[in-house]
């Protein structure tokens, strides 16, 4: 009986981890694009995820009531729409702020502009977080509908004793996450835009000589990066409750995933995020709730100290 119970718990955690991990993976991909192309550690990534969540939340609340969209699919559509909205914000922010300390300008700054970039994005994070407190209030909210509470039952297996429940909202979110990641991967590999982004990432100077507008490439990469993470946030909004400070918690999850996968690698980031999701859910079986965060940090530290190039990506030159 006990063994079967354990089996059920483990299977349940694995499934939940896989689904939530897909959303983490999507958010990690957003973060890693920014690092991969711009070599910038974006501290405010968690806040853009938060914006994606609130975008979904407010559109859901307003449009749902005013125009009466009550389709069960509606929050998921909004989550995807958070992408373009935050993408536009990204273009503006890059032009107004980020561009001053990144790209080819950075080489003139102390420590290749690392100071300036980290601190600038930290400033943006603080403004968004605390501005969010003013605009959105501090009460936790969530975007939930019936799907958030519905599950498909998988089983019963092993003589009717073991059943795994697969949450429907999480499943849809995970599928959307996967589609977005694959779609973005195709853009990077197949299109001219993707090529120019990769060229700008590889060697900004050489790319400039080849007629690529590196500033523009960076701007687009920044927009893509935070837009994709915002979609992840929008999807997650159907599964967790949130407040404006949620970003800090998740930025670590994102960095853990990205570092696990190897900084700058898209495939690695997705797999890394997936692993973090699974680790988080499975660790919940044996550890008290409060220590789940610690598990992720310890895992993150272990990876960064002993295998800074990650597990899934190519070796990064800055390692």
């Amino acid at each position, binding site marked *: 009986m006990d063994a079967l119970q354990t089996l059920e718990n483990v299977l349940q955690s694995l499934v939940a981890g896989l689904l939530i991990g897909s959303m983490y993976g999507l958010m990690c991909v957003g973060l890693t694009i920014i690092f991969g192309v711009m070599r910038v550690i974006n501290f405010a990534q968690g806040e853009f995820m938060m914006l994606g969540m609130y975008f979904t939340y407010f559109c859901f609340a307003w449009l749902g009531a005013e125009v009466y969209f009550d389709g069960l699919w509606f929050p998921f559509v909004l989550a995807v729409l958070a992408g373009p909205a935050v993408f536009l914000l990204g273009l503006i922010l890059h032009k107004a702020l980020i561009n001053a300390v990144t790209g080819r300008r950075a080489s003139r700054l102390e420590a290749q502009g690392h*100071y300036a970039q980290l601190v*600038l994005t930290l400033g943006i994070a603080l403004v968004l977080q605390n501005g969010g407190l003013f605009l959105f209030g501090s009460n936790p909210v969530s975007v939930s509908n019936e799907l958030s509470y519905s599950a498909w039952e998988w089983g019963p297996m092993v003589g009717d004793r073991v059943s795994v429940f697969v949450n429907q909202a999480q499943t849809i979110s995970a599928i959307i996450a996967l589609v977005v990641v694959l779609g973005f991967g195709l853009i990077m590999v197949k299109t001219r835009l993707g090529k120019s982004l990769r060229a700008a990432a590889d060697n900004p100077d050489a790319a400039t000589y080849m007629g690529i507008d590196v500033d523009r490439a960076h701007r687009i990469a920044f927009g893509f990066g935070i837009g994709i993470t915002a979609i992840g946030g929008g999807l997650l909004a159907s599964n967790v409750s949130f407040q404006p400070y949620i970003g800090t918690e998740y930025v670590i999850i994102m960095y853990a995933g990205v570092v696990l996968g190897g900084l700058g690698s898209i495939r690695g980031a997705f797999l890394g995020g997936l692993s973090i999701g699974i680790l988080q859910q499975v660790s919940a079986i044996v550890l008290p709730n409060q220590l789940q965060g610690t598990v992720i940090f310890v895992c993150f530290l272990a990876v960064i*100290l002993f295998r800074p190039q990650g597990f899934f990506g190519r070796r990064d030159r800055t390692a």
Partner: protein
Amino acid sequence: MNAFGNLSGVKRDFLHIGIFGLVYLVLALVVSNSYYQLIMTIVPIWAVMGLSWNLLSGYSGLISFGHAAFFGLGAYLVALCSVVWDLNPWITIVLATLAGAGAGLLVGIPTFRLRGHYFALAMLAYPLALLYVFEWLGYQEVALPMHREAPLTYMQFENPVYYIVIALVLLMLALGITSVLSHSRFGMSLLAIKLDEDAAEAAGINSLYWKLAAITISGAIAGAAGGFYAVVLLVVTPLAVFGMLVSAQALIFAMFGGVGTLWGPVLGAFILVPLSEILYARYAADFPGIQGVIYGVAIIAVILFAPEGVLWKLRAMRKPGTFRMLGSTASKADFGVSEELLVVPPMHDGKPVLEVAGLAKAFGGLQATSDLSFSVREGELLGIIGPNGAGKTTLFNLLNGFLRPDSGDIVFHGQSLQRQRPNRRCAAGMARTFQVPKPFTHLSVLDNVVIGAYVHTRSKVEASRHASAAIHLVGLHDHLDLPAANLTNKELRLMELARALASKPTLILVDEILAGLDPQAMQDMLVVLRRVRRLGITIIIIEHSMQAMVQLVNRFIVLDHGALLAEGSPDSIVRNPAVIEAYLGRQWRQEEAGDE
């Protein structure tokens, strides 16, 4: 003389610190509003945090997002000791200081394996992991027990001025420590590491040692600040002491005021803390989070308009056109120009200075050097030539310890150098210059060279003397005070040579020192190299210009695809058919033929 260098600079700082303390004390006595008194207590605490951050990150360039770890440990230590054992804060703040130092050392040992982005990210994780641990342990809110009966023992004064005085004393201590350290070898070494860690290692600076010293002292200061913070606020919560905002504030105050300066973090805290506190008090009801927005906007503005902080900006405005140059430990008063200082007494033991046996190094599939063996005699000037990609610079990196060989051994003066870090090799007498010069751009020529001279001496006077002798030898004595960033290519190369010489080497590895020089400059350089050799220093030189090399060296080693192609006198090498084929090319042969 001791390691604490320039007393005049420290004395001047101490005078300023004293004046500052007096003014603040008078102000504290004048103010009677208890809210302002609280702010006047909090501000110095945050200034101390800014100084703590600055001591590590401002001087070493490694950005810490984790200073909340030390602050929080200090705060919890004071709070818990007070609850559990009823210990008084006078004792526990000292313990908190020690705990901060210990935590700094513990964090530093593994984390200094990382550089740049990775270091910053790793530091972020420590306080946040601790935050969850303390929540899990059930310390969501620890209140210090009241001890109205013994206010002095338990630091629970009726009169808030006493708190301000203690905060001020802490701040003055932190300022004093920063001043003394920044004027010593400590500050110079950390600056060198910040500007170019590889060059610093090659110049004999044990970068791990100095970084560990910095994080230990920095952690101690942050621990003390956290401990006193707990005493002032009487309640400790994980978020308030381990939270992201604590680390962020430490960084923001230092960045805002001026990175790597004594007064910058103080300035930052004294402007931003009162501003945010007062606005918070006024508008918190309508605009919660206004503090965070102010901090955020403040650092965004600083990054965009004064990226190195307000203090540097003010200095630049006062003296327009001045280059940002960092502090100095050297003083010209200590000059005695004497080449004898640099002379290497001959050993005459007949043993080779350097023996390389079976050295191999591969990068992935590329065999950069393979089974390379040669030896260098005392006083020899050995030239290494070979086509691009032959493994010449890799060989130097293996010799001076930037790279670890896959196999083989390097024996220097009869001692194997296996696993010795570059700074140890420099101390053992092996110095080098770089193919692409690695100057410490924000330091003067003199300071650049003094850094090399600290390898063998702790005394500033002696270091300055060695440095000046080296600078004279290479002929840069007219440029002592010039920032290295303003030097020409030739001067940079001479300065690197001087930096190498100042470490009193017996062997110098010279990497393409003639590259990019015009014929006249090349001749000047050859004169300097011969002068260096007359000191008894053995030289290995990588060079492409065959013309120059033939004039200079005793013996050649020719590398091709990482292997030894030929070895011999200049005469034999230029006539060796294999060398001509691999490196010199047919043209050389034709020119030779034409000459004859």
